[in-house]
């Protein structure tokens, strides 16, 4: 087990990078605590897998250093780091039995057969693979195969962290839930550091204590699921987390009022003051669930046109047009749905100001 630290990591696949856009990873500087469950969340191509491969040692970063428990491992190959990795598609040694698959990493490290057997049986018990031990690994279902991949990591008693690269992609939906729960169980039982890469926010938010959101090679926010939801540090986080994502409106500031094409919205005083100083394009953002919708005009509300209504079962999504900007609001079940015209109120607590895509922060910086 180990604490993992990345210091000023950057990586490019191009031999002569010209500017920042040539980098797959741009200045990643962070730490993973020992025994934590982390999710690395981001869209395809944002650099998640690259970052994972830098941690496991499959890739040597162009710049920066990787530390395990304070020890510099940047130049060490994966087999010298105590790390296990589970890939998107189950990787098995087809010609071997499940038992031999699980024993493989131990035998490669020259462990004596008695110890190998003890470890393999232990891990098979945890992963509920005992009945399959003598079967050929290739004949099993995808979820069992993925458990074997995980098992090959768990058998090594010295393993510092297990990295998952979208491990549930090929698993049937009804088994996903089961396998995810199994992962949590394993985590609680063995207290290993787990780093889980995914582009599925539900997976990330349910699995991890800390979610790290990646966007175009950068870690844009690290936080608990609640923090990501309530205080997105970057426009991308607001947009990516939550379904539907955050609403954004381009605005200008006038005192504590944000003006959006003639409509005036009151925002937090402190935030507005900081916003006056901020550079770049200003936008306000609000989550659909915090955007209040009224059938009549109330204090501080602005009128908008109703465009569409989607029934999602336990809630409804109302699409409105505010001076040419499309906004979505989440209505609870019993709420009356306004026809044609709706009055929107932006609660100051949940209305966030963004300058050039980054949150104008009233608390601490990232």
């Amino acid at each position, binding site marked *: 087990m180990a604490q993992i630290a990345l210091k000023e990591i950057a990586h490019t696949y191009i031999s002569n990078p010209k500017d920042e856009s040539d980098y797959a990873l741009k200045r990643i500087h962070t730490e993973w605590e020992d025994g934590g469950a982390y999710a690395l969340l981001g869209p395809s191509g944002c650099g998640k897998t690259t970052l994972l491969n830098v941690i496991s040692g499959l890739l040597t970063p162009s710049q920066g250093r990787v530390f395990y428990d304070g020890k510099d491992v940047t130049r060490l190959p994966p087999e010298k780091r105590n790390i296990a990795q589970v890939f998107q598609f189950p990787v098995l040694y087809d010609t071997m039995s499940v038992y031999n698959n699980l024993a493989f990493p131990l035998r490669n490290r020259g462990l004596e057969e008695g110890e190998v057997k003890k470890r393999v049986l232990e891990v098979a018990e945890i992963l509920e693979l005992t009945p399959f031990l003598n079967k*050929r690994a290739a004949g099993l279902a995808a979820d069992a195969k993925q458990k074997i991949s995980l098992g090959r990591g768990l058998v090594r008693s010295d393993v510092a962290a297990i990295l998952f690269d979208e491990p549930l992609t090929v698993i049937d939906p009804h088994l996903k839930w089961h396998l995810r729960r199994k992962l949590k169980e394993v985590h609680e039982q063995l207290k290993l550091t787990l780093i889980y890469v995914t582009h599925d926010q539900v997976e990330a938010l349910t699995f991890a204590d800390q979610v790290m959101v990646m966007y175009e090679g950068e870690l844009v926010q690290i936080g608990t699921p609640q923090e990501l939801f309530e205080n997105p540090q970057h426009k991308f986080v607001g947009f990516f987390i939550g379904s539907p994502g955050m609403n954004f409106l381009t605005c200008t500031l006038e005192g504590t009022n944000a003006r959006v094409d003639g409509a005036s919205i009151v925002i937090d005083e402190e935030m507005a003051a900081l916003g006056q100083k901020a550079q770049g394009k200003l936008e306000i953002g609000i989550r659909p669930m915090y955007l209040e919708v009224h059938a009549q005009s109330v204090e501080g509300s602005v009128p908008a046109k109703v465009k569409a209504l989607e029934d999602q079962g336990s809630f409804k999504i109302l699409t409105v047009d505010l001076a040419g900007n499309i906004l979505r609001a989440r209505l609870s079940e019993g709420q009356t749905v306004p026809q044609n015209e709706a009055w929107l109120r932006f609660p100051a607590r949940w209305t966030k100001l963004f300058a050039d895509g980054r949150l104008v922060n009233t608390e601490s910086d990232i």
Partner: protein
Amino acid sequence: MEKWQNNKAWFLVLPAFIIVAFSAIIPLMTVVNYSIQDIFGPGESVFVGTEWFEEMLSNYRLHDALWRQFMFSGLVLLIEIPLGIMIALAMPKRGWGVSACLVSLALPLVIPWNVIGTIWIIFTRPDIGLFGVGINSLGLLGDTFDHTARPLYAWITVLIMEVWHWTPLVALLCYAGLRAIPEAYYEAARIDGASSWATFRYIQLPKMRGVLTIAVLLRWMDSFLIYSEIFTLTGGGPGNTTTFLSIYLVKLATMQFDLGPAAAFSLIYFVIVLLFCFAFYQALLNVGKGEKV
């Protein structure tokens, strides 16, 4: 739902049946026809039953040719398959080297077969051939390397020619098989601390099983049927030492004009090739029983 009770569906098989009939069954039947009759000329034939077959089966020259053939094809597989795998493993995976390797490997495959025989005649000539002169000037052999003089040298020449000609095919097939292995397997192997031998034994070799099956079958059949190159290079000699089945068959049929025995021989030949292909196929299929991904 009730089933339709007529046999019209058979008509759908008809086109395929006609094509196969003209391409395989009718020519084959001609051979069968010759093998059970003694034909002197148009309209003059005598039914001889299994006489030709009995004659051929007890023909010691055929036994010798058959034995030589097994020896040759066996050696070909033993050399070409491991060599092909090694070449495929050593080939670059990206960059300009890939195209360079592929093109140079494919070269022997596109040369007409009788030209290959001619190339090797000249190449190994002890007076002017690069190989012949080269090996003789080393002076390691007790006598002159001349494939027309000693059976051993004839065999070595024939085998080197065959290996040069066809190993590229095995290598290309294996290379395609290797390239199809997802990168994650290699990454997992590295993380599991597998040695390069273990990686080969447990990842690359099992994943190449499909292409290797094809390579073994193709090389077995082709080497078992080899004719043009050897006919050009040695003509079956010195003596009869490189007279393989097809060479003996052609001698029998066209030089001695013994059509009946030759036809019987052809059928025996055909059955042998078929039997071995079946055996190889079954064996390779069962090596990894139940391990289909």
